[in-house]
């Protein structure tokens, strides 16, 4: 059962120039959250901006929830100004998460796709399940909170034991994470769990399809309600018609998605 509540902001700090980590007190949501699920978060108490923003659950720490977000527009721009102690309207956990049951899954994160997959990795670790994980980013700098630390800065992702690729070579292999994935697929692997920008997900889905490997993708769509009521979050379905990103997703079997119409 999902819950709607006023969540107190316990922390809100930069982990990169445009990436922030928010901690929210939300016991009723934290207790139920599963990797791949999301919350709807209102960034203002007033009517502007009107709609809540969807964010993946990045992790759970006791009764609090982590949200890792990138500042891209009006809403996230306001979010980063929110002070500790303020309360934000939030509801969740929402949607269908990752199925973590498969044998030796491979986690593939691109950019902010790290948000839900870090939670998935943590869950797998806690279960003692074997898995592999890789991420790709543009540059190491994106996750380095230069202003929050002295010296040359810590990369938020660096202490993770994940295979990495970066477009400028500043972290891990130079290039795209899909190159890492292609190699892994050539060597055979378990099911793929992916989240990241649409072009990356398309490539991941195609690669998995070519290799006959099951693939779950976490997809984004503009959302109003987050609970399956408004039908705003339509994702074109292979079988015709649409799936709701907030209900049949955000994590979907890549084979169900009509990648041509998306």
């Amino acid at each position, binding site marked *: 059962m999902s819950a709607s509540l006023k969540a107190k902001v316990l922390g809100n700090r930069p982990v990169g120039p445009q990436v922030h980590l928010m901690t929210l007190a939300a016991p009723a949501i934290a207790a139920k959250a599963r990797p791949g699920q999301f919350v709807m978060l209102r960034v203002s108490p007033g009517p502007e901006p009107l709609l809540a923003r969807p964010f993946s659950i990045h992790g759970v720490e006791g009764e609090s929830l982590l949200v890792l977000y990138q500042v891209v527009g009006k809403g996230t721009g306001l979010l980063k100004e929110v002070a500790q102690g303020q309360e934000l309207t939030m509801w969740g956990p929402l949607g269908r998460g990752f199925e973590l049951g498969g044998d030796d899954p491979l986690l593939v994160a691109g950019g902010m796709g790290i948000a839900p997959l870090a939670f998935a990795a943590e869950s797998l670790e806690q279960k003692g399940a074997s898995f592999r994980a890789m991420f790709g980013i543009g540059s190491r700098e994106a996750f380095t909170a230069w202003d929050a630390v002295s010296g040359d800065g810590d990369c938020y992702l660096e202490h993770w034991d994940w295979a990495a690729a970066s477009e400028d070579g500043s972290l891990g292999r130079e290039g795209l994470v899909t190159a890492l994935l292609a190699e892994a697929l050539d060597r055979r692997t378990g099911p793929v769990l992916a989240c990241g920008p649409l072009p990356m997900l398309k490539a991941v889905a195609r690669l998995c399809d070519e290799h006959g490997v099951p693939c779950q993708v976490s997809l984004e769509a503009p959302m109003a309600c987050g609970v399956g*009521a408004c039908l705003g979050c339509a994702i074109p379905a292979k079988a015709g018609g649409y799936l709701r990103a907030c209900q049949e997703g955000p994590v979907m079997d890549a084979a169900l998605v009509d990648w041509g119409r998306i």
Partner: protein
Amino acid sequence: MSQRPDMAVKVGGVELANPVLAASGTFGYGREYSPYLEPGALGGLVTKGVSLRPREGNPPPRIVETACGMLNAIGLANVGLEEFLKNKLPWLAEQPGAVVVNLYGESIEEFAELAKALGAAKGVDALELNVSCPNVKEGGMAFGCHPGAVGQVTAAAVAEAGDTPVWVKLTPNVTDLAPMAEAAAQAGARAVSLINTLMGMAIDARTRRPVLANVVGGLSGPAIKPVGLRMVWQVARAMKARHPEVDVVGLGGIMSGIDAAEYLIAGAGAVQVGTASFTEPGAAGRIAGELAEFCAQQGVARAGELTGSLHT
């Protein structure tokens, strides 16, 4: 403090525990919101518009945020009559609160067929005819913009709906709503609901493309409240003068109990909460509570006293 006000009203032939309903298209088939509302918190709900056959709706993007509002072009996606009767209505029928089924046909015959099936179904308290959806070219707009068509659709539905009261949901995208309400009233509607969304558009200046795949969409939310209030006031005055038996159900941008009270004062017998549910899934329940609190504070013994009490 004063006594607990009596919030029960009878509107459009339906007894409501309180005057707050959830609006069509913003509350799914009710169940989606059940984790977020106390049972019995609402006077009732209006379902997503039901059509004869299932509809996929428009390609995405279907929604976009605007200043204090949003545009939607869902394209009347819904599960269709059969699935609604089989898998949505039974759950709804067991809940406290009135069930108003919003329905939509592409022809007068379709409206009649839907009214017959839904009017006969157990658990349906009223029908709300959507003659106003601005998104589908082949019907909605045309019906709601001509008094003659509104009258014909209403008469056909009333004839088939049996004892189930028929409400007509009007579009604000017209020069004068009064003739539409008059036509609905003459054809036997028990209530008119207004307003549906204002037709609008959003453009991405950088790509020079419309944001919505459908190009245009319906504007809802607090931005439109002044338009909704004005239309409810105008139509309620017209109904009071010529058809006192026809109620007005007011909506458009209601975000708080005070907003709801404003609509009642303007002449509505009940209100609907739409977009507000997207800002907080429990919004409609909160608003019903705030309205009761407002009545208590103002010494209003019965919610119905507010209706049409505007001093001009």
